């Protein structure tokens, strides 16, 4: 029940707030914040109720109610570790986003907080749903509040950006809808057909390969648009630049993760054979995204656009880790989703605070701010470092796991992917630090910057938790990793089951990693032709360790 309350508490709040008078801005904000904090409290409770041991069932805290039995829908929610950590991220970021917008959103406050609350319900629901129709309903329900956030409270070209965002995302989801319907028709005979994810998970992997390919394509397209992966990313810079700071925080922090989450929860486990076939393509696109996003960031003069393109790059990392299909890579990817949510959310908040002071996002307008606003500069620095993955910050843990997971994976030519990924890390450091230098170092060139105020208590409240999380998650990744890892294990097992030669992390490599910190050589064996499962050389099944501590302490590895 706690899970249901967690999902619907924001929506209940939205209804309650609809009844409040619209002129009382303070009251509206306070009420919304109260509901969001209560949601956060519930999320913590759910975190406590979640059993992280790998013996626990795949989906925990399940609830199943009949919704429309005559057409096979059920209301079925439940969470695994991945959903759990992402729900917590959602519950953390939403109140901070609202708090960051106290100053900048002064018009139509009522609609604003209602939209945020509805968005939170939709996001939490998307993560928790384990019925395909329920998932789709929540997935689509995320669109409208975000569309309004961009279109009503955004900047000059907001309408264009909002419509582009909506149509782009919807284009993918509609094909996914057809795929869901097909999946429903294809798995299970008359009478036993269902949209229930656990039931479909048992059937879908046995579909014929051509069917799997098409279905995977439809799901992957929808998720890849949301991520966004390289050729489908063009809506993102527009949406980010035009969205208000609060919208950007939610969009970058949580909404983009829904795409990668979709791969982990739906596209890969449902269609394992197709996933393995398409994996090189996805990995190539991910690597292109990493490098391209980084290069685009380098050439931006608008801070918000820079951060937006850096999202393309960072989510390329996440996708690369997923494509590795090793426990390490997947765990690292999910961890990197959280990191990106925290660091990019904080960056958007910081850029928003600068914009509130100076009404400009052009880097050339700034310079030398470190002397004027030391606290803001310090926080900005910490977040920048977390974003570039300095050891000791959360970014390092994720990137390290992803790169080592990719290197040791059975992806053909995996060292090359790793190399380009690492190149992306370097470029990331370049553009982030260069931006930092241009904005904060040097003399104060612009007179208008002289009298800027430093962080206010409200801004500290927004940034404080994010900074603490960035450092805390860098130093103590254990609790989160141990909750993600059973889910990653399960995913790798599922894929291993279909294609043993191409997936998985040998036990030895993990052990070696733990001892020496040096990733083992990847398996260079020729991959078996995929179309003939019978031809796969029989490799003994490798049982993954029940407990998993893949990480060297970051400081120890890189002093």
């Amino acid at each position, binding site marked *: 029940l706690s899970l249901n309350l967690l999902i619907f508490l924001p929506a209940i709040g939205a209804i309650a707030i609809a009844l409040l008078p619209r002129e009382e801005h303070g009251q509206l904000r306070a009420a919304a914040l109260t509901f969001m904090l209560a949601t956060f409290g519930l999320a913590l409770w759910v975190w406590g109720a979640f059993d992280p041991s790998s013996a626990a069932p795949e989906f925990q805290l399940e609830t199943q109610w*009949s*919704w*429309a*039995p*005559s*057409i096979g*829908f059920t209301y079925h929610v439940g969470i695994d570790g991945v959903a759990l950590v992402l729900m917590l991220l959602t519950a953390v970021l939403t109140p901070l986003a609202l708090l960051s917008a106290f100053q900048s959103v002064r018009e*139509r406050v009522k*609609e604003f907080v209602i939209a945020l609350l509805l968005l939170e319900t939709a996001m939490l629901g998307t993560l928790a749903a384990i019925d395909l*129709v329920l998932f*789709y*309903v929540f997935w*689509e*329900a995320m*669109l*409208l509040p975000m*569309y*309004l956030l961009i*279109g*009503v409270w955004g900047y000059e070209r*907001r*309408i264009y950006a*909002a*419509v582009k965002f*909506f*149509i782009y995302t*919807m*284009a993918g989801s*509609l*094909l996914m*809808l*057809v795929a869901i*319907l*097909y999946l*429903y*028709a294809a798995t299970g005979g008359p009478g036993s057909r269902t949209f229930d994810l656990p039931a479909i998970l048992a059937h879908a992997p046995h579909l014929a390969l051509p069917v799997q390919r098409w279905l995977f394509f439809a799901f992957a397209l929808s998720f890849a648009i949301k991520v966004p992966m390289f050729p489908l990313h063009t809506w993102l810079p527009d949406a980010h630049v035009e969205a208000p700071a609060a919208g950007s925080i939610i969009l970058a922090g949580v909404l983009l993760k829904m795409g990668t989450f979709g791969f982990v929860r739906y596209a890969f486990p449902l269609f394992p054979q197709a996933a393995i076939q398409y994996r090189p393509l996805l990995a190539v696109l991910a690597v292109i995204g990493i490098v391209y996003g980084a290069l685009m960031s380098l050439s931006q003069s608008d801070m918000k656009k820079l951060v937006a393109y850096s999202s393309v790059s960072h989510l390329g990392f996440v996708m690369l880790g997923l494509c590795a299909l090793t426990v390490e890579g997947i765990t690292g990817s999910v961890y990197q989703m959280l990191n990106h949510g925290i660091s990019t959310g904080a960056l958007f908040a910081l850029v928003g605070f600068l914009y509130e002071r100076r009404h400009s996002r052009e880097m050339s307008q700034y310079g030398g701010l470190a002397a004027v606003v030391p606290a803001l500069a310090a926080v900005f620095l910490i977040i920048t470092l977390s974003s570039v993955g300095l050891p000791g910050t959360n970014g390092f843990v994720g990137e390290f796991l992803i790169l080592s997971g990719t290197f040791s994976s059975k992806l053909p030519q995996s060292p090359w992917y790793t190399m380009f990924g690492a190149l992306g890390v370097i470029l990331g450091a370049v553009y982030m630090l260069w931006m930092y230098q241009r904005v904060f170092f040097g003399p104060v060139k612009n007179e208008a910057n002289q009298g800027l105020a430093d962080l206010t208590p409200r801004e500290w409240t927004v940034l404080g938790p994010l900074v603490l999380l960035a450092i805390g998650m860098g130093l103590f990744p254990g609790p989160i990793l141990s909750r993600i890892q059973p889910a990653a294990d399960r995913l790798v097992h599922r894929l291993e089951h279909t294609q043993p030669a191409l997936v998985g992390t040998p036990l030895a490599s993990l052990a070696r990693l733990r001892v020496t910190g040096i990733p083992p050589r990847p398996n260079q064996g020729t991959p078996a032709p995929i179309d003939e499962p019978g031809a796969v050389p029989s490799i003994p099944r490798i049982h993954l360790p029940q407990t998993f501590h893949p990480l060297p302490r970051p400081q120890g590895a890189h002093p």
Partner: protein
Amino acid sequence: MSFTLDDLLALSPVIALSAGALVLMLTEVFLRGERRGYQAIATAVTALAAALLYVWLGPESIAKPRALSGGFAVIDGFSCFAGATICIGLLFATLIGAGFLKPRAAERGEFYALCLLAAAGMCLLVQGNDLLFIFVALETMSIATYALAAYLRAESRPTEAAFKYFLLGAVSSAFFLFGAALCFGASGHTQLTEIGRLSAAPQVAGTQALLLAGLVLLLVGFGFKIAAVPFHMWAPDVYEGSPTPVTAFMAIAVKTAAFGALLRVLITAFGETGLAGPETWRPLLGGLAILTMVGGNLWALSERSVKRMLAYSSVAHAGYLLVGVVSSGNLETRGEAVSSLLYYAAAYTAAAGGALGVVALLERVGPESGQAWDLDRFAGLGQRRPFSAAAMTVLMLSLAGIPPTAGFMGKFLIFRAAVDAGELPLAIVGVVSALLGLYYYLRLIVYMYMRPAAQTAVPVHRHWPGEAAVIAGAAATLWFGILTGPLANAAQLSGLFGG
């Protein structure tokens, strides 16, 4: 052929509607003074009563579908569900009309009486099981609607619209009648059941060819009535020119009735395998469905007039309903297809009825210029009327098929039936065209929330019946979008044909 009490009971909704019409016409004659408020109330009560009668008749008809004495009409789950939907459509039109006519000093008994008569014709249409009977019902409906379209006769646009509607309607009736005659010539019967018996058991090749020709002509006739591309040319002009309550009536109730009759003719008379059977009409209607979905949405894209946009959107929705009709050609999944179509029609009734209700609220009293229903009229509505704007947003989302609205569930069920029936390409074209549609539905939301109101904005009228229609439409759309179970269940039970 003798009528039993049960037969009267089966026709009781139609009798109620006709009686209401007669009462209104009579009292109008003897009316002194201008106290006409009772007329709308009487109509609304009659519509509601007829709808409830259908709901009450429903369970028994689902359990025991039967033909009335003489076999000219039937009562089954399908006709009860469709009939109830039509009566709800009438209710929407009445409410919108009550709010719309009063400020224009045009409230008369004829308006409501014509509405009721048209609805009686529609209800007979979905119950009809005999080509001649269906033709009579079709004409009852059509003639009343022609008159309604010209109801504001002081203005030129309604007159023009009514004339266009009349001409094309007459052509379509001619097609229908010719088709019916050929079917009669081939089979010697006008009853659908008898024709069906013949088309299922091929004896002489010539008979089959004659039946086939009759089928195609019937389809053309229906194509005009449901405004399927390429028989849709009249729709935008007529929808725009007619008074808005009448537009709503045409968009929702007429469409449901025409689809009900189409489905019954196809399934009862041409439902089994044969030359004049699903193998022939599935590809034909499949092509029509694709043209209608894509065409309707494409033309709506470039419309700035909201009323014309909704007209094209109604054409596009006819395309989605046609997908349901095509899916019903697969004998194995027929029940699913029919019930998805019923659900879709009900969802569309709430959404389009409510949306045209908003249009009526925004209309100027007096003659409208050519730019009358421009999108600009909706600019800033989110500020001026947050409640109406929120309702309109829900309705637009439903028309676009975005959850959590009934429109999404309708599209979902239609496409599911299509996939199950092996019509995957239709489902894919359907979702792609839905994407096209998304743009113009969103544009309205853009205008309502993201553009400031014009200086010369038309004041928004406050008349509670019209607002009630809007709120009812939005509330039903949300309610059935979220708690979709009961309606979907009823539609599923009603998906089986009798007779």
